[in-house]
């Protein structure tokens, strides 16, 4: 069964350092997303990506964040200068369609646990 894969599963970084979280969405999907979940809290939307550009982003997704689809398969989230409060589980998700009323389920990866020390 196709799945979204994320690497690494756990990343520890020093405050102020840049990190890149990687995702390989399901191959025939068109919409890609990044969500984050601080421990014990809800899943928060960061950004959605379609047709090689950001289609929507949340208030959390400020200038320190960026996304890229550098080739036909990878989808990356870069955090330029990490802060302690960026520590969270970051989930990548993809869906075959993303915009209402056609949007369908989001398939989530296993997540990358980012710890900023």
């Amino acid at each position: 069964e196709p799945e979204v894969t994320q690497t690494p599963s756990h990343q520890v970084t020093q405050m102020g350092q840049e990190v890149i979280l990687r995702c390989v969405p399901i191959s025939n999907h068109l919409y890609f997303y990044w969500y984050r979940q601080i421990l014990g809290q809800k899943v928060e939307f960061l950004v959605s990506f379609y047709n090689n550009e950001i289609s929507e982003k949340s208030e959390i997704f400020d200038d320190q964040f960026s996304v890229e689809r550098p080739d036909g398969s990878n989808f990356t989230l870069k955090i330029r200068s990490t802060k302690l409060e960026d520590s969270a589980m970051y989930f990548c998700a993809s869906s075959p369609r993303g915009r209402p009323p056609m949007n369908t389920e989001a398939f989530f990866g296993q997540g990358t646990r980012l710890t900023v020390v």
Partner: protein
Amino acid sequence: GQQVMQIPQYQHVQEGEDFTTYCNSSTTLSNIQWYKQRPGGHPVFLIQLVKSGEVKKQKRLTFQFGEAKKNSSLHITATQTTDVGTYFCAGTPGYSTLTFGKGTMLLVSP
């Protein structure tokens, strides 16, 4: 901003008891989805409801979408220990992206 609110935050039941979680939005939703996240896992899609008043069943799980498309519920009949996890509703207010509720953590004691 647009919010999807979910109650209760936490529920502890004995195996065999029923469980219900409720989801409410301040704005009309284009559709609503339900996800389950096992402890330490990632959200896994359960179902999507699109039509006003829609009711769908998956074995012991019953999902409802309100007539006004602003609320939804998930009801589990006769819970089992395998039902443990956090249940999230996720709505699409208008034409924006999927917005998750805070989730209801379900604990089932044998």
